[in-house]
């Protein structure tokens, strides 16, 4: 069977078209080099289906498959899903630690330690006040000064308690804001649901929607900072996924969860988990320590001077107040103007249990924050390194794309030259053949 004279043209045309597609893909990669979540694509080429010549193709009359050029087999997205899972796991830890750090930073700021406005320094002045009163129990100015110092200290304790409450409330408010209908998570969940539908219909019609897949992966990446995520395929809907956040189903094919989500199996991890922990555990812990400190202070001082601090309600730190006035202050138990036993006893409380409890609170907050910072920077390093490995697979390298550009351009030029050659052959065949003697 003879082979068509135009076969060469057809083969080189395929080459031209394939090189052009490859150039298009390179252009797509280059323009998306800075797009978040973009995975580089590749036009996978394969030899075009061969032309089967049944007989007479080779000596001896046998048939053969004649190469028919090149075709683009598929446009593939270069991505390693194993690295995606690793990245998301690390990113969840990072989200948790960075939210913890910023929450604890607020708590540390409220302490105002070390500094003149801090409770430690006010406590020192308070004890000085008692000692000065013990030195001059008759002195009205010393009495007034002590009462004022006591009030300043009580106010500072109450303010710190209020500020800690605010830190907790801010964390819980941010949690509620993330996890509300129409909130950030809701918006992402709905977009994933829409993407699921689009991807599913593409896949069912036999195409690979690379850019939609990138977008969906990016959304899951972002979700992973907020909580633990997992992604699983949906049975019966190829391309579609079920996304869970903190163990709760967030998106199933095209339906997204109703908000707010109640995280049942435990803390959702990530930013959400950290916010919940700060609001529900960390801050209440600090407040309890502050309360115990205030309780100790009131008990110790009132033990030395009955009734200096007024009666306190259940939370001593929130209700501490000086009840004594300059007139009712009694430096001595006997009432003699020079008697100073109570003031001496109160002054001797310096450096005692109350100071110790407060120092422990400061150390605790400082230590927790330091740990959180260290863990945050560790998590950052790990997340970056996983992301680097991911980028190493999926990211766009300009050098590589430039090399490809050259490669495909040359391929195109060569194909064009081959076509030219085929054309010249035809020229000879059509225009010059059989013109003998003309």
């Amino acid at each position, binding site marked *: 069977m003879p082979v068509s004279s135009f076969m060469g043209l057809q083969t080189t045309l395929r080459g031209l078209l394939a090189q052009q597609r490859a150039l298009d893909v390179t252009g797509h990669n280059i323009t998306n*080099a*800075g797009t978040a979540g973009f995975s580089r694509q590749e036009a996978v080429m394969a030899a075009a289906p061969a032309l089967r010549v049944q007989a007479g193709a080779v000596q001896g009359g046998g048939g053969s498959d004649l190469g028919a050029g090149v075709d683009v087999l598929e446009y593939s997205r270069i991505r390693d899903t194993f690295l995606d899972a690793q990245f998301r796991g690390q990113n969840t830890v990072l989200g948790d630690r960075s939210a913890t750090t910023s929450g*604890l930073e607020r708590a540390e700021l409220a*302490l105002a*330690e*070390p500094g003149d406005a801090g409770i430690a*320094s006010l*406590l*020192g002045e308070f*004890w*000085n006040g008692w*000692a*000065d009163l*013990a*030195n*001059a*129990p*008759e*002195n009205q100015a010393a009495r007034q000064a002590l009462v004022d110092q006591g009030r300043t200290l009580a106010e500072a304790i109450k303010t710190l308690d209020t500020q800690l409450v605010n830190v907790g409330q801010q964390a819980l408010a941010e949690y509620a804001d993330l996890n509300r209908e129409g909130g950030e998570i809701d918006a992402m969940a709905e977009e994933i649901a829409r993407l699921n539908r689009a991807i599913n219909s593409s896949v069912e019609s036999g195409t690979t929607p690379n850019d939609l897949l990138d977008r969906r992966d990016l959304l899951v990446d972002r979700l992973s900072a907020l909580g633990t995520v997992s992604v699983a395929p949906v049975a019966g809907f190829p391309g579609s996924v079920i996304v869970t956040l903190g163990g709760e189903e967030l998106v199933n094919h095209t339906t997204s969860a109703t908000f707010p989500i109640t995280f049942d199996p435990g803390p959702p991890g990530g930013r959400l988990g950290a916010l919940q922990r700060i609001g529900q555990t960390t801050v209440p812990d600090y407040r309890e320590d502050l309360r115990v400190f205030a309780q100790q202070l009131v008990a110790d001082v009132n033990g030395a001077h009955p009734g200096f601090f007024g009666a306190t309600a259940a939370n001593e730190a929130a209700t501490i107040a000086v009840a004594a006035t300059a007139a009712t202050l009694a430096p*001595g138990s*006997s009432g*003699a*103007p*020079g*008697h*100073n*036993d109570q003031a*001496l006893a109160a*002054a*001797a409380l*310096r*450096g005692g249990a109350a*100071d110790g409890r*407060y*120092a*422990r609170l*400061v*150390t*605790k*907050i*400082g*230590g927790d924050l*330091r740990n959180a*910072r260290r863990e945050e920077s560790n998590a950052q390093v790990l997340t*970056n390194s996983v*992301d*680097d*490995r991911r*980028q*190493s697979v999926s*990211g*766009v*390298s*300009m*050098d*590589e794309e*430039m*090399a490809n*550009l*050259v490669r495909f351009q040359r391929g195109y030029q060569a194909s064009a030259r081959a076509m030219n050659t085929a054309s010249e052959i035809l020229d000879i065949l059509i225009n010059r053949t059989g013109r003998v003697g003309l």
Partner: protein
Amino acid sequence: MSVRITQAMIARGTLGSIQDVSGRLTETQRKMATGREITRPSDNPFGTSRALSLRTELDGLKQLQRNIDEADGWLTVTDSALDKMTSLVQRVRELTVAGASDSAGPTARNSIADEIDQLIKAIKQEANASYGGRYVFAGTETETKPYLVDGPDAFQGNGQPIAREIGPGVSVQVNTIGSAVLGNGNADGVDDGRLLDTLRDVVAHLRGGTPADANALRGQDLRDLDQGLQDLLRTRAGVGALQKRLEAAGARIGETQETVKGLLSKTEDADMAATLIDFSTQQSVYQSALKAGANIVQSSLLDFLR
């Protein structure tokens, strides 16, 4: 497979390391500006707790120093009053010796008695010595004059001690009880054998004029006066010893303060030399990071293709 290096990795890596270095630079700069190693508890939680307790200790030591100064002032006033009382009593003794001599006539004895009356007032006046508006001999009744200069001799204060803390957990009694030195006179009809009682006896014997009175002047009264002087001297010696003790305690507290200050500075102050070296090292690292970053980000195959 060799690692592909992509533009995004280069950009993030460059930015990350520049931010890292500039973060450290800011930290060092803050240390230099504040002169503090610790500006927030999280800088060094253990150091913070150490600094807090050292600061409490330092506060306490400063307060003790103030307590000692105050106690010393009190004792100085006490000592000076006792000193004047001693001279006054010595004068009384001289007068008593003069009055007791046979050569002194009733007129002379009466005028001596008058002078001693005045001296008694002066002694009581001394016993009303005050420090910062507080009567130092009145026990804890510091706002009540211990003796009525123009009235009866009864002691108006009480016998309660006044304590000052001069060391951690160490309190001393700084006040001298007036009645322990001068007594209550014999206004209540009971002889307490104290100075005022003795002085009143001397005056009575001078005015009495009988041979028995003269004998008493020469005998019992002089012995009692000597006893009174002895008491005064012993009391002064006690006050002086206490002042010495305060001085020693003050010196010791001063030394401890220096030690604690040193420890505190070591804990929370920045080591300037080390910090400065850190700063210049980090600055040059920062500049190299910037320069390297600028060069890496700029060049690509694009520069060489035509």
